[in-house]
């Protein structure tokens, strides 16, 4: 099992976000997280790379407990993941190229590898020609695709994407979905929070439905209809 949540709750001073969630995701799976706004999708995702810690419960990534993990080991876990953030989180003072390259520099990739890989992922998401633009000079959808390219750059074992197509038109969304399905086929585990039912229907993958901080349903691939 790659990701395991055992009775995880997250309680903020201003209210409960997750209520006793248990969830297992195997290596090689492709899982959609769905549910209405505020259901807790982003909270679950943030816990997987330890941006947030659970109030109660245990979380294991590749059999290592995130709760008991020492501060110094956290970066190692994050480096084996690719993360697409709901609010993009691009470095404003770096160009598109540098934003993607930075993720590779963090893991210690050589300049040669970086020079080869960055243009590759940028064209995968349809952003060739924007290399030297700064995030502030991009459209919403373009920024979102930079975030996706960055997550893909290191060919991570686990790709976590929080609403990666919210600012994209259907054609671009479909392309991204196909890209992810392709990567998944090559072995990468994918967890994707989304509101886009068209995509979910097209993909025919496992769907975990959240509602008010609880798992309301867990559909095996092909089970989810509308």
């Amino acid at each position, binding site marked *: 099992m790659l990701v395991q949540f055992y009775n995880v709750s997250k309680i903020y001073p201003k209210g409960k976000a997750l209520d006793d969630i248990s969830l297992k995701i195997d290596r090689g799976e492709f899982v959609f997280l769905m549910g209405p706004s505020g259901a807790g999708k982003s909270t679950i995702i943030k816990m997987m790379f330890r*941006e947030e810690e659970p109030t109660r419960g245990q979380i294991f990534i590749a059999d290592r407990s995130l709760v008991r993990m020492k501060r110094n080991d956290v970066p190692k876990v*994050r480096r084996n*993941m690719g993360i697409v953030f709901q609010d993009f*989180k*691009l*470095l404003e003072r770096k160009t598109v190229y540098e934003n993607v390259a930075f993720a590779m520099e963090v*893991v210690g990739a050589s300049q040669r590898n970086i020079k080869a890989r960055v243009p590759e992922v940028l064209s995968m998401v349809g952003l060739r020609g924007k290399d030297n633009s700064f995030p502030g000079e991009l459209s919403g959808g373009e920024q979102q695709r930079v975030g996706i390219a960055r997550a893909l750059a290191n060919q991570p074992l686990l790709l976590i994407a929080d609403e990666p197509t919210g600012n994209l038109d259907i054609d671009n969304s479909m392309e991204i979905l196909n890209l992810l399905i392709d990567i998944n086929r090559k072995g990468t585990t994918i967890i994707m929070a989304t509101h886009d039912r068209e995509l979910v229907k097209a993909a025919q993958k496992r769907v975990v439905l959240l509602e008010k901080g609880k798992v309301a349903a867990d559909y095996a691939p092909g089970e989810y209809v509308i």
Partner: protein
Amino acid sequence: MMKNLVYFFREALKSMARNHLLSFATISTVAICILILGMAILATLNASHLITRLESDLEIMSYLHKDLSPAQTVKVEQELKAIAGVDSVRFVSRDEALRYLQESYGEDRYDLEKTLGNNPLPDAYEIKAVDPHEVPLIAQQIEQIVGVERVSYGKELVNNLFLATKWVRVLSLIFIVLLSLGAIFLIATTIRLAIFSRRKEVYLMKLIGSTDWFVRWPFFIEGILLGTAGALIAILLLAVGYDTLIGSIQSVPFMPVVSNRTMLLEVYSGLVLIGATLGVLGTYISLNRFLDI
């Protein structure tokens, strides 16, 4: 590691160029603080130089019995020289003393010797101490010497002088210390604000897997470079300004100035070191707050 260093340097340079407001603020804050600190240190050095000069002018007059033979006089001189802490002993004959007195009453308008017929003043020795602060002690010892009629060193004046110079020294030290603390604080605050306005950048770097040190290095290099640059600008202004100043002031008597190259160089390089250190230290402390993610 070498490869990384090159990378960190490049990152630091890029970031300085792109965050020019922050770079400018840091450089100019460091420069101004170091400049003010430098001016204060130079002023204090000069004041203490002046005080030392004043103090070293202190002398003990020991007046001899009127009826001492030349041999006895020489013996007194030997005994004086034997006292620990005595720097120099100079014989002032009664004739010389009269001439001084004469002068203070105006050249040759009143010929004291002629008027008086004979010289009423005694012979004396003028003694300087190695450490002016030992003057009272030495004076006490001199009083014991046979053949010395009386010892005079302006007791009250000397005590007052020492009290005054002690105060000046203590106050300027306090001022320098406060100023240094102030400068450190101001520089730290500026760096803190600069890093505060980049906190989201740090946060994101950590989220995508940077270790603390991977985030820190470029910031550190930036801190050193900006701190050193600021300090160098300050030192340049300070050195040029001070040189011009001592050039035009050296003609003035009463105003001994510190123009000891080695000492100035030490002060200058110390200040540059402070700039660089504060650059890194300020960065380290301010950064830590935002790294805990």
